[in-house]
């Protein structure tokens, strides 16, 4: 559990502050066997599951934070605690200077929540009607509503959808409409739980661009959970990784990459068939000669891809070795995908 940021002092620009927050759930264990019938009735077996285990986290206003973790790590539990839907077992929670438990009504006027697999839209009404409903229920001033409606309609390309029934929208359109509705009261802080789940590439791109824009231009604080690490890396400046209810990492994506070594990928394209084996053998020879190594990830008739640790061999040295090979027509260097790094970390933490 390295690199955990802990800040205990809450300042005026703190949007979210979790102090030593734990959340435990009780699960009834039922065997379904006849011999356990009496025990199931009288004293059923209980199992206590720690969804959050002494989590401390501070998010400043204007930050865009990715909140990630494997299934059951406690992401949704945290979002529910922050939005007042759940209460923690212990610890203190402050959101925009308020306790979600004690000031729920007031807090809800200032934050927005979207759960990816749930909708706040009225199913049998056009989305414009849902928006009007929101305006009344949230008591949004006319001017704010007009301005926000214009903005979300334009940025989320909702013009043609406003008079469409929510039940007739595709998943991507519905998510856009849900996101737009959430923003109508101009929240200072938004929580998004798996907002890109099930979206196609285009819908995902639209959503990511939109979120980045409102974070940048309006200074809206955003906390987003997702399993899609590439999406998160594109959106957020900071990533908080949860593992078994604890914060296992809190920092930038670059810092996260350092955890598994500074892995880099290089893809070589050859001219003509049959060169690949030759190149591979020669490169291994060269690297071995200098006491270095690179892992072959994939190879086909005209290209191969290697992964190497830049802490062990610099990109410059690697390129120097490759320059000695014949038949190479193209070279492509990339950072190792964040998905791979996180998967490696999950495996490591699980073990």
């Amino acid at each position, binding site marked *: 559990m390295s690199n955990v940021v802990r800040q205990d002092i809450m300042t005026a620009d703190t949007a979210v502050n979790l102090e030593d927050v734990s959340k435990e*759930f*009780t699960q009834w264990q039922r065997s379904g066997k006849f011999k356990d019938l009496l025990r199931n009735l009288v004293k059923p077996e209980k199992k206590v599951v720690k969804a959050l285990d002494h989590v401390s986290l501070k998010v400043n206003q204007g930050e865009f934070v990715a909140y990630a973790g494997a299934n059951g790590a406690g992401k949704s*539990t945290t979002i*529910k605690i922050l*939005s*007042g*839907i*759940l*209460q923690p077992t212990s610890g203190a929670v402050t959101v925009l200077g308020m306790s979600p*438990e004690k000031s*729920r*009504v*007031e*807090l*809800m*006027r200032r934050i927005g*929540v979207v*759960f990816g*697999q*749930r*909708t*706040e*839209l*009225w*199913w*049998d*009404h056009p989305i414009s*009607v849902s928006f*009007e*409903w929101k305006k*009344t*229920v*949230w*008591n949004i001033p006319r001017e704010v509503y007009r301005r926000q409606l214009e903005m979300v309609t334009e940025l989320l390309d909702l013009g043609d959808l406003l008079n469409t029934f929510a*039940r007739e929208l595709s998943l991507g359109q519905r998510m856009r409409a849900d996101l737009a509705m959430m923003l109508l009261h101009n929240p200072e802080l938004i929580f998004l739980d798996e907002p890109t789940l099930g979206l196609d590439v285009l819908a995902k791109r639209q959503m990511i661009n939109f979120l980045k824009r409102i974070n940048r231009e309006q200074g809206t604080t955003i906390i987003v959970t997702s399993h899609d690490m590439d999406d998160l890396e594109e959106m957020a400046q900071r990533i908080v990784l949860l593992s078994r209810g604890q914060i296992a990492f809190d920092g930038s994506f670059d810092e996260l990459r350092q955890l598994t070594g500074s892995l880099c990928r290089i893809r070589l394209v050859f001219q003509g068939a049959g060169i690949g084996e030759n190149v591979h053998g020669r490169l291994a020879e060269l690297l071995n000669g200098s006491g270095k190594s690179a892992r072959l990830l994939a190879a086909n008739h005209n290209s191969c891809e290697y992964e190497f640790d830049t802490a062990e061999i610099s990109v410059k040295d690697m390129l120097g070795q490759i320059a000695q090979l014949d038949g190479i027509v193209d070279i492509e260097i990339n950072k190792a995908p964040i998905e791979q790094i996180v998967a490696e970390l999950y495996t490591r933490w699980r073990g």
Partner: protein
Amino acid sequence: MTGISGKGLCFAVSNIKRLIQLWGISAKLDLLWFLRDTKYCLMTMFADVVASLSSFVGVFLLAERFGNIGGMNRDQILFMLGYASIVNGVITMCFSMNNVAWISRPVGRGQMDHKLIQPVPLWMQLLTEGFIPISGSSFLLCGIGITCYATGRLGLAPGLLWILLFIVLIICSVAIILGCSYIASSLAFYAPVAAEEISTTVIALFNDLMIFPLGGLSAVLRMALCTVVPIGLAAWLPANFLLGQSGVAQVGVVQADATHVGAIQVGAPQAGATQPDLRGVIILIMTIAVAMLAATSFRKGMKYYVKRGSTRYHDRGHRS
């Protein structure tokens, strides 16, 4: 002291304003449905009228055949059936959208999360979001029609006070049915799968039994049906109280014998009564007791819900 009461007044006024706003938007949603899908909306309303009439036609035919059931004559029974229809109508019109009356459904389906993220106190949401004044009006209109007809046939001359009493009793009956639904629905917080439809069972129990005159039952049974399982308070006792009917005095009050009601000075104790008519007090006390029990059990359930969270989620019936 003045400051405190002034603050309290301001709070009350702002709450009333909010309630009106929220009822307004619910009414607007309903109106929009009527304007957009007029044909389907009218079909729904017509089906409701048929359902309303068919639900009590059996009891009315029995009264027609035998002239008198449980100490009530045909017209008195018709009045009670009209009262029952109004009670059902108010529940349909004010609490049926979003399963507000059938609250075990949103609880059991984990949909209370949607309510918790609204910047509106929960009581206010429950009071307003079920309001469908157009599509849900047929039961109520039907009930008002039947009650007016029965009132005319009984030769009653309702004054303003009687009408006010009628409204108060309707509110009490509605509160008792909803209260019982909420008491039972509180179980859905602890057993969401098993108790998801428990409110349906409770409301169906009232709908099925509230139309029967209970006067022919034993005193113990009547007492039980007005206290333990307060079905008698949904229509029979309030209707009898309104009619000044004395055949039901055994619920807790002993009154002079009277087997029929003709032209009655409504709302006042019947001439010849030897003891005061406490039926109104019983209804009021029971309403308060049921409402308090419902509020307590539901609040306790909500505390459990936010502590434990819901282990399941279904969007069925949510905002549709």
